[in-house]
């Protein structure tokens, strides 16, 4: 099976992934606010976050995450579509937007195809993973 590997250290914040995802789903238009991947900024870093499951309640763990010598707000890395986080919702209808992997065969994950920096890579992982 396939997974999208995200390397935030390579991300330049170009938002090509957001454009690609929105075009792939809207089919005739682009709109980053309707993408199922959003590039969130935390301090001086960009974190491409792919929208995951929709949850009915916000979590209450609010932990910090330490990567290298920096501490980040966990909310910025979390993939959940939660009531607290408005980024993975259609801006007009508020319908949660969840990554559907674009159909893994053709045409394949649009975000990976348009990511020019190598921050998003499609990787094959063992099925039990």
């Amino acid at each position, binding site marked *: 099976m396939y997974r999208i590997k995200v390397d935030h250290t390579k991300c*330049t*914040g*170009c*938002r*090509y992934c957001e*454009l*690609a995802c929105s*075009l*792939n789903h*809207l*089919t*005739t*238009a*682009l*709109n*980053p*606010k*309707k993408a199922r991947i959003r590039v*969130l*900024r935390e*301090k*001086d*870093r960009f974190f491409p976050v792919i929208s995951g499951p929709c949850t009915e309640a916000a979590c209450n763990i609010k932990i910090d995450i330490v990567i290298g010598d920096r501490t980040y707000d966990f*909310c910025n890395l979390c993939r959940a579509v939660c009531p607290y*986080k*408005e*980024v993975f919702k259609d*801006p*007009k209808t508020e319908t949660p937007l969840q990554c559907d992997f674009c159909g893994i065969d053709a045409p394949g994950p649009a975000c990976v*195809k*348009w*990511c*020019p*920096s*190598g921050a998003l890579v499609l990787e094959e992982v063992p099925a039990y993973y």
Partner: protein
Amino acid sequence: MFGWQGKALRVNLSNGFVEEELISENLLENYVGGCRLAKEVARLEEVSAEKNKLIFASGALTGTGVPTGAFCSVAGYVSLQEDILCAPLLLRFGPELKCCGYDVLIIEGKAPEWCYLFITDEEAKVIPVAEMEGYTPAEIEEVIRSSFSKWYGNDIRIISIGKEGEQPSGLGGLVTDGLLVNYSGGLGNVFGEKRLKAIAVRGTLDIKLAKAAVFQKIITDAIKDFREKRNKLFETVHTVFARLELPLSREIHHGEIEKKACLACPIACLHQREGKFLPNFTVTFCFSELLEIENMEDALTLYDLCEKRGIDPVALSVTGRMLIELAKVGKADVTLTPGDTKQLVALIEDESSLLHKGGFWLAQHYQSETLLQDITKKIDTTREEIFAQIEEAGKKKAVLEALGLCPYALLAFPYDVIIKAFEAATGKALEVKE
């Protein structure tokens, strides 16, 4: 319309009146974007010293995903230069304005007190912020973003001015999302004249494409090709820089730096260290060749001061060089030794110093127009060097600039990819006139 939104927003700061207007298709087709469109709108609006307006214009490809399709141009009448000036805004302001539904934004009148303009696809309002007077652009961005939720604030794009733009000066530039806008010297002061401290935009509308499937294939292929040739591109750029012998650039751009990009730009020529933008190629050239700054600490201190006060670093370098030359021949009574950053900082902090007059005023006052031309030509010639290996670079660059794209796109993408993408995005053929 496809590619464009076909609408302009007019805001009058004197009375807060906001109006949406349709833009003639003819105008957009003849002036597809960039400063050509912004200046044409300025001409139609009869922008002058007495009737000054700020014009923002995005091109047909802004925000569509065409490589480097991120720019928006801003124009206004700069009194100290007695002309309409125009500068390209990098990063994401233009695409965001387009997602608010507008290709063009016209700001007229003068606010009764300091204010900022907030535009979404649902409303545009003038918000009084008297307390923001004297704020640095970074402080303004922080105040604006923190007045919304974290996620909403993350998507707001901002242009602002610092202290330099609040007073009459030839150096007052713009800052967009933390990045100083090169060549915006004087435009910041147009914001200041209007008591406009900032513009914040956040849009959620679609940008429609005429032939979406064709467009998607063009961009997919172009990015695939870019990824395969990426190393070669960076080699070429390094060779150009090595040829130009800019030791300051090597110093600034080495070590722990992070590459950042404007919207839809695979090249990512912007650099940050610890969250702050570093001087780009043009600024590094200006600092080292015009101001003769040799060490990195001095260059970064100066750039930092520019960011805090909202000073256009290119205008600062040109004016600084003018003063150095005028002082040498005894025309201007000022002490400015090449490479002495302390003297330069003192002149910046002295608000009555000649430095704040800007290069154009100095050239006129001291009848030294040729000197100014020579200095600006030096910058232009160096920038041209970057495109030396590209056939018909002048013509292609002019087309890209007219489309509101970054000319650096030519270094990484075949010209015909851009032209085909234009046709797929807008459904119209691009006719290039001499």
